[in-house]
Structure formats: structure tokens, C-alpha cells
């Protein structure tokens, strides 16, 4: 690293330029990752709170599983309850509807979750702790309470029925709509009022069972919570396209860093030949070159991350934006690795430099 640091100081303009490019790419990646995280949160935060080892959805022969079209009748629920190895079955109903406050014309889009009393869930489950005890009560997520501008004890109308706000809890979302919880009975009645069957749409099941066999017998599909997220259409299309953009930015960053260090190393080919003629090993020269690339990457990415944190805090007030290690440090680490892989291509110029060219008047 003896030469690396000194070259960084000597050619600081060039290195600041490439560091700036890396910082800008980091900013773009960080923004997209934060936005992806925010959109994902608005899609799935409530689904991630569903209990059980597997989530069961209806699986028809000609369609892919979907949270929005799944309906599980009493026979299916009973079949799962009686299946060998199944220890608990929690029937859950999910539909998207609208809620209004008396005197306010503007309805708010909401996701209605029908949750049974006494379900076996962790004490810290923020979805189930909102579940009301009475059929004429509802629990509101923070987003729903803000959209409707109501407080505990206020009344709201859902599908033509009036409910009292029993509690306001965490910020829970389902497919970009804030969550409202109600009893299974109240949810079933609401479902019927909007043209549904009133049957639960998803089962949260647990136990050491043969899930594939039971699924095949019952016309359902049992997936882990994470796998089941693909059954949320909005989530799949949004995250798919954003993830593609992030992947392309990763590729661009590797190419940009690789191209810069290839040109930079080619410009130094004469110096490298001299150092080899004086007795420098390929290993020492490669360590120096990669060390230099690492410094530029870490510097650029650090600046980019600071910008992401600053601007992300502002963007978070207007956009669904998540700042977390997963949306900042993880992409940064990937960029360091890919950037170094790009820089590795430049090492060809180091290993191929011929010390013989240092003699004579070639330089």
C-alpha cells in the first residue's frame, strides 16, 4: 500500500472523480433499496405477522395461488385441522375494502383482517394484539387511524356497518392499504356484504406434518411465510422490477470501477514495468492495486451512504422509504465486492507488464 496511498494523493483529482461516481451509484442503489424496502413494508408487513409454520392458500388447477382470490371453505379447514401432524390451525380472513367516518365524505382504502380470539401467537405479535374481543369493535393500525383521523372510542363505518375503535396499534400494511382488524365473525359478515363467501382466505398452520400431501388432498398450497409473499401480486411486480434495477446498478458499478482501474493501470504500465525490473513481485503490486481500489470504493460508498441516510430521512416523510442495515449496509457490501471484482480485471495489466520494457528509451 506504500505506492497506493501516495498515488491517491498525487492523482487526487482522478480518484475523487471515480469516488464521486461510486458515491452517486451508491446513492442510487441506496435510494432504490430504501424505496424497495418501503414498498415491500407497505405490501407485506401484516403478512409477516401471521403465525404458524406454513400459510395455506387455495390452489386451483389453472391459477397461481393468490391472497386476493383464495377462499377456504369449512371442509378444507376441517381437513387441515384433522390432518396428521397438524397441531394448530388459525383461520384468517383478508379482504380489501373501504372505511368511512360519519360526516366525512372521503372513504379510506383499508385491509380488513378477520382474526380469531385465542390464537397461539407470540406475545409481541403486533397484528393479533390489535384483535378486538367484540364483534362491533375494530383495531386500527397507525396508518388507518391517520387516514381516517380517528381515535380510540370513535366510530367508523365499514361495508355499511358501524364499529367502535377498540385500539390503535403499530404501522401495519397489506398490499399498500393500512390494516384494520376485527373478529372472525365480524369479518365474515363484512365479506358477505361485499360479495364474498365469508370463508377464511388463509390458514396459518403448525406442526410436523407432510404439508405437500395434505395440500394435494385439500386443493391448497402450504408455503412458508416468505415463500407465500409471491402470492401478493402487487408485491411481486413491484419488487421484481425494483430488484432488477438494483441488480443492473450493481453491474454498472462493477463495470465502471473495472473500466477506471483498467485504464488507470494501463497508464501506469511503465511504472509497473520499472518496479518489476527493480525486483517487485506480482503479489506486492497486485495487493497495492487492489488496496487502492478498496480505498476508493470504501470512500465513495461511505459518502454515498451518508447521502442516502440524509436524503432518505427527508424522502421518508413523503415516500414509503426504509433505512435499515438491509437497505444500506447490505447493498454497500455487495458494491464493495463487485467493485473489487471489476478491479481484478485491471490486474491483468499488472501481471502482464514486462520489466524488460523499463530498459532502453521506451518510456
Amino acid at each position, binding site marked *: 500500500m*506504500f*505506492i497506493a496511498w*501516495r*498515488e491517491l*494523493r*498525487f*492523482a487526487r483529482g482522478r480518484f475523487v472523480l471515480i469516488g464521486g461516481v461510486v458515491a452517486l451509484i451508491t446513492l442510487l442503489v441506496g435510494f432504490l433499496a430504501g424505496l424497495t424496502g418501503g414498498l415491500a413494508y407497505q405490501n407485506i408487513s401484516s403478512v409477516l405477522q401471521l403465525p404458524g409454520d406454513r400459510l395455506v392458500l387455495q390452489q386451483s388447477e389453472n391459477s397461481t395461488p393468490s391472497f386476493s382470490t383464495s377462499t377456504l371453505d369449512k371442509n378444507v379447514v376441517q381437513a387441515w385441522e384433522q390432518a396428521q401432524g397438524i397441531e394448530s390451525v388459525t383461520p384468517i380472513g383478508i379482504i380489501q375494502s373501504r372505511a368511512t367516518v360519519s360526516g366525512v365524505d372521503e372513504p379510506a382504502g383499508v385491509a380488513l383482517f378477520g382474526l380469531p380470539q385465542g390464537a397461539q401467537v407470540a406475545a409481541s405479535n403486533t397484528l393479533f394484539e390489535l384483535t378486538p374481543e367484540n364483534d362491533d369493535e375494530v383495531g386500527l393500525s397507525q396508518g388507518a387511524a391517520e387516514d381516517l383521523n380517528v381515535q380510540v372510542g370513535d366510530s367508523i363505518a365499514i361495508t355499511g356497518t358501524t364499529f367502535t375503535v377498540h385500539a390503535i396499534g403499530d404501522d401495519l400494511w397489506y398490499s399498500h392499504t393500512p390494516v384494520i382488524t376485527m373478529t372472525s365473525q365480524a369479518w365474515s359478515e363484512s365479506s358477505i356484504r361485499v360479495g364474498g363467501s365469508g370463508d377464511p382466505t388463509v390458514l396459518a398452520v403448525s406442526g410436523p406434518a407432510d404439508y405437500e400431501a395434505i395440500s394435494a388432498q385439500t386443493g391448497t398450497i402450504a408455503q412458508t411465510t416468505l415463500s407465500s409473499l409471491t402470492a401478493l401480486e402487487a408485491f411481486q411486480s413491484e419488487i421484481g422490477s425494483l430488484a432488477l434495477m438494483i441488480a443492473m446498478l450493481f453491474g454498472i458499478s462493477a463495470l465502471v470501477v473495472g473500466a477506471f482501474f483498467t485504464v488507470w493501470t494501463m497508464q501506469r504500465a*511503465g*511504472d509497473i514495468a*520499472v*518496479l*518489476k*525490473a*527493480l*525486483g*517487485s*513481485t506480482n*503479489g*506486492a503490486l497486485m*495487493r497495492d492495486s487492489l488496496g487502492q481500489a478498496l480505498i476508493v470504493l470504501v470512500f465513495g460508498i461511505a459518502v454515498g451512504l451518508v447521502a442516502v441516510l440524509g436524503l432518505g430521512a427527508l424522502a421518508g416523510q413523503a415516500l414509503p422509504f426504509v433505512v435499515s442495515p438491509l437497505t444500506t449496509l447490505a447493498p454497500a457490501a455487495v458494491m464493495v465486492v463487485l467493485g473489487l471484482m471489476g478491479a481484478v480485471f485491471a490486474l491483468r495489466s499488472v501481471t502482464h507488464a514486462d*520489466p*524488460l520494457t*523499463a*530498459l*532502453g*528509451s521506451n*518510456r
Partner: protein
Amino acid sequence: MITLQNITLTFPDGEHRITAVNNVTIHGENGTVTGITGPSGSGKSSILAVAATLIRPDAGGILIGNGTDTIDAAQLSKKDATALRRERIGIVFQQSNLIPALTAREQLQIMGRLGGGTGRTKRAKIDARVNELLDAVGLSAHANKRPHQLSGGQRQRVSIARALIHEPEVLLVDEPTSALDQESGAEVMGLIARLTRERNTATLLVTHDLVHRNVFDDVITIVDGRVSEPAAV
């Protein structure tokens, strides 16, 4: 001491090979400067490249050292030849070939770091000699200047100090005055001769003319890759 013994070197030329150096023997004693001269294309730079282990001869030996310490550098692997250049050979290039990002002091310090992480003791030893060498070449006052801040003669003096910092047994010098005016050239040649004697190195110096012939203890003239008759010193 260095002895190039019956060196033959050929290069590919289409389907054939041309002989650049033909059975040349040159001997350089410790504390002496041996001039290697000849017209352009005579093969004198090829001889220096062979002596520097930058190119392996087709035949012959490169004997470096004294008595039992003598090794045949022509038989060394590429890795060992690189280590030999780092440890026992100093090279002064035609264009000084200093690293633009390094100061004069750092050009010398780098010699202790060419082998990578190994050799901390050697590194410390070299760092301790930097001031002495810069003083010896008259550049103490310019130690913190980069190459573009130095004159051609000063750059070549840094190059000489760099070649001697690790106390090599053999000093190989390639046309050191070709880019200098006559006065600077004379200073550089005088410096090489003085340091050769003071530090008891065996110096082989390639030059295309004999303007500075007074610094040589011996002169070998190469014509068409062969040793011609001895020139008068």
C-alpha cells in the same frame, strides 16, 4: 563481481532467429566501472538486460558474487531472479524511470517494500540509509520533491541513489547521460564512478559514446553482438 560468461542471446524473427549477442564474455570487478559501448543495434542493451536477469540467455552464465557466494543467475527461476534484482543488483535506467507520485526520499524507500509484506528488518535498514544516500548524491535539500520538480540531472541522481540503497554487489547502468546535457552528464558519470569505488560495487555501464571515457576502468566494444577489439581508455 559479475561475469557474463559466453553469453548468447537470440530473438525470433519470423520463421528464423536472429542472434543479438554472440558468445560474449564480460567481467566486472568490485570497485570498477566497465563500459560497454558500441553502435546502435550492436547488442549492448541486450547484454545489460541479460545481466539484469530481465531476459534469459540461450547459452552462457551470469556469475554474480565472490568465491562460494557466487551464483549463476542464468539458472534462476523467474521468482528467484526477481528476488536477486531486489537483493543484489542495482539498476540505473536511461530515462531515470522514477515513479511520478513519489518524492525523492520515497523513491529510495520503495526499494525496501518491493517484496511485499516480508522483510521488515530490511525495510528498516533501507529507511535508515535514505538520508545518507541522498546526501551522497547531493540531494538532501530535494528529498521531498517529486520527479517533475527536479531537473534531468537531479532525477538521474535519485535513480542512482535508488539503485544503491539496498547495497547491491552489481550496479547496471543503461545510457545514463543520453537525456542530459554535457555538464549534467559529466556530473552523473563522475558520481557513478565515485560511488562505485566508495561502495565497492561491480558496475557495468552501457553507453553509445566515449565522451566520459575517463570514468571507466575497462571498456568493452560490442559490434554485431560480438566483442570487438579493446578500445583505448
